[in-house]
């Protein structure tokens, strides 16, 4: 069933691609992974982007022109990423959409940058996915990882009365470190909050028994454990923590969103994740639930994680900027994007400035998993944006 639906979407995309290839079509180039291990992360966000493109085309297009999609597979390989970037740029892309992860997306983004095209990362959460790492024409559709860590710390402090924190960092990727950096930045701002311990592990560690032993040796259990990690190691770490009898609340980044893995840790409770929108059908904004239904209709399955949403946001804000600029010309579009201050989108407001093409503050929904059931319990926006200087360290 799912395959048929996917096929349907592919046909739709192909139809878009082969629709009367007018010279004045606006071209969006996807230099993303259609195979290899990044595919599982790129594809959902790309599908969401396709939904927005289809909506725009059905509503008459952008600046009265249809959006045409060209794609090139990065094969989840960096060198192939640069090649894919060149392929879509040479195919006339006005916007280059690149892979979800900064490391895998940047080669193509750099190609777009040197060609003077706007590039947007599907869901990269490093500050480098933007001016600081690629150049003035590059943006990310998601929110900085640091904001997730800061959000969870501040929320737990205010809403759960957490005072003692433990920090467990998986040094595997920059994303993980970013979450903990945001947490570290926020903690001193919370009066009376203390860090009672800190440890590191690596995502592919066979066992984190030693790290767990250290937590259990603490004179008193922490009020909350900030767990900065991602898939696949996250499930393993969470399961090992709970199996060892540690019941303290666990605070996370968005990377562990989704219910698909919950069966691995039966009856998981006291578990908190910040998300941009809820995939569980209980988003305070009914339009998100409507989007979920649409996504299901297009792809045959529900969004698996919140990382579907930035793909939609990306096309949305870019299209608005193009509308306002009245052109797809990069400098004008960037100027319009940089004027956005708390620009409302389906998945929270977006702000871009000439200093930062990323979100250093964002509204997050807080999802609590209780007895294995995730649901939205709250909403939080950090009290002040994380300054760029802190993000660059």
């Amino acid at each position: 069933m799912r395959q048929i639906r996917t096929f349907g979407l592919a046909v739709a995309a192909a139809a878009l691609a082969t629709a009367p290839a007018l010279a004045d079509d606006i071209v969006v180039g996807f230099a993303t992974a259609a195979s290899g291990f990044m595919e599982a992360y790129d594809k959902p966000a790309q599908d969401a982007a396709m939904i927005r493109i289809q909506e725009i085309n059905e509503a008459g297009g952008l600046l009265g022109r249809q959006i045409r999609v060209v794609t090139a597979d990065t094969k989840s390989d960096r060198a192939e990423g640069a090649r894919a970037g060149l392929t879509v740029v040479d195919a006339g892309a006005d916007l280059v959409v690149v892979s979800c992860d900064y490391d895998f997306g940047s080669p193509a983004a750099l190609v777009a940058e040197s060609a003077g095209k706007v590039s947007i990362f599907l869901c990269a959460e490093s500050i480098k996915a933007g001016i600081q790492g690629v150049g003035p024409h590059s943006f990310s559709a998601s929110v900085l990882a640091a904001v997730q860590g800061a959000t969870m710390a501040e929320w737990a402090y205010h809403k759960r009365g957490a005072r003692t924190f433990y920090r467990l960092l998986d040094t595997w990727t920059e994303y993980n470190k970013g979450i903990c950096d945001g947490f570290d930045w926020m903690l001193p701002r919370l009066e009376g909050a203390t860090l009672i311990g800190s440890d590191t592990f690596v995502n592919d560690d066979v066992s984190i028994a030693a790290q767990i032993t250290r937590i259990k040796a603490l004179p008193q259990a922490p009020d909350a454990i900030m767990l900065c990690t991602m898939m696949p190691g996250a499930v393993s770490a969470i399961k090992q923590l709970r199996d060892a009898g540690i019941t303290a609340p666990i605070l996370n980044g968005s990377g562990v969103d989704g219910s698909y893995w919950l069966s691995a840790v039966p009856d998981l409770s006291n578990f908190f994740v910040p998300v941009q929108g809820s995939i569980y059908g209980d988003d305070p904004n009914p339009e998100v639930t409507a989007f979920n239904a649409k996504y299901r209709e297009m792809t045959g399955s529900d969004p698996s994680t919140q990382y579907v949403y930035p793909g939609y946001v990306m096309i949305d804000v870019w299209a608005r900027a193009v509308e306002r600029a009245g052109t797809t010309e990069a400098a004008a579009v960037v100027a319009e994007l940089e004027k956005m201050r708390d620009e409302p989108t389906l998945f929270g407001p977006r702000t871009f400035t000439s200093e930062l093409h990323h979100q250093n503050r964002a509204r997050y929904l807080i999802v609590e998993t209780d007895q294995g059931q995730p649901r939205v319990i709250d909403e939080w926006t950090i009290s002040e944006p994380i300054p760029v200087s802190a993000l660059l360290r």
Partner: protein
Amino acid sequence: MPGLLQILLDALSLGSLYALGALGIALIFGVMRLVNFAHGDVIAFCIFALLWPSVDVVPIVFAGQLPWFLLIPFVLAVGAGLSVLAELAVFRRFRHANPATMMIASFALGFVIRYFLLMLFSSRPKSVQILPGLSQPVELLGARIPLLQVVTILVTIAVLLALVAVLRRTRFGLEMRAAAENFTMARMLGVRANRVIMGAFAMSGALAGAIALILGSQTGTADIMMGSSIMLMAFIATVIGGLGSLFGAVLAGFLLGGVSVAMQFALPLEARPFRDAFVYGAVILVLLWRPQGLLSGRAAKERV
């Protein structure tokens, strides 16, 4: 300072996994001088055999629903079967090749298995619930420790004892030990080479299955790369234990687990991310000290 007992258990349980992995590699190396880089992918395959192929994020549990007394033999058989298949289809044709060629062939085979799994299951980790009964803490000498840790250690000890029994008490074991020490001589005494090698592959594959079960119940995840870090450590353990020495491989596996856990405790926070760099540094030192491995002096050669 955490209890010494707990640290010891941490070290033993991690060491157990490395030791089981090292045994799987040493068994095959012993009889055909092959460093089997596909071993890690066999581990991953074993766990995915519990799922029905699907790229959806929610796994479709298939054989994973079997009761434990069927599940365990099933996974072990999958490992053994895949390994024997690898021997029949690939390695049998490389008996004359030099070790580098065999090693690259095994790597290519592992590559094929990994991408086969990727195509069927996608790269997103799948959650599997294996032997959920093991996911609870137990009280032991005043410490609350995960049951799985105890089980891992006990299983490893049981596997080692069983292996010792097979190798020492059965004709097949005798032939295998003879073949591991001097393959040509064993054949000149009528030992059937293919039978011994196939047996070694089957045992190695079953060990991969055992690791898959332990890892699977510990992490609750099936991931296409899950065998690779064990494979690397096991590979190192096999070499520093003394290639061809099964006992050395086990010893070195436990040693690596112990060093790794000890470093995690002993290193200050800032140095802890560099833990693995220290472990690998120690590996180089051990190799310089004993290039033939810990247990490979002719007289001190293993007698498992």
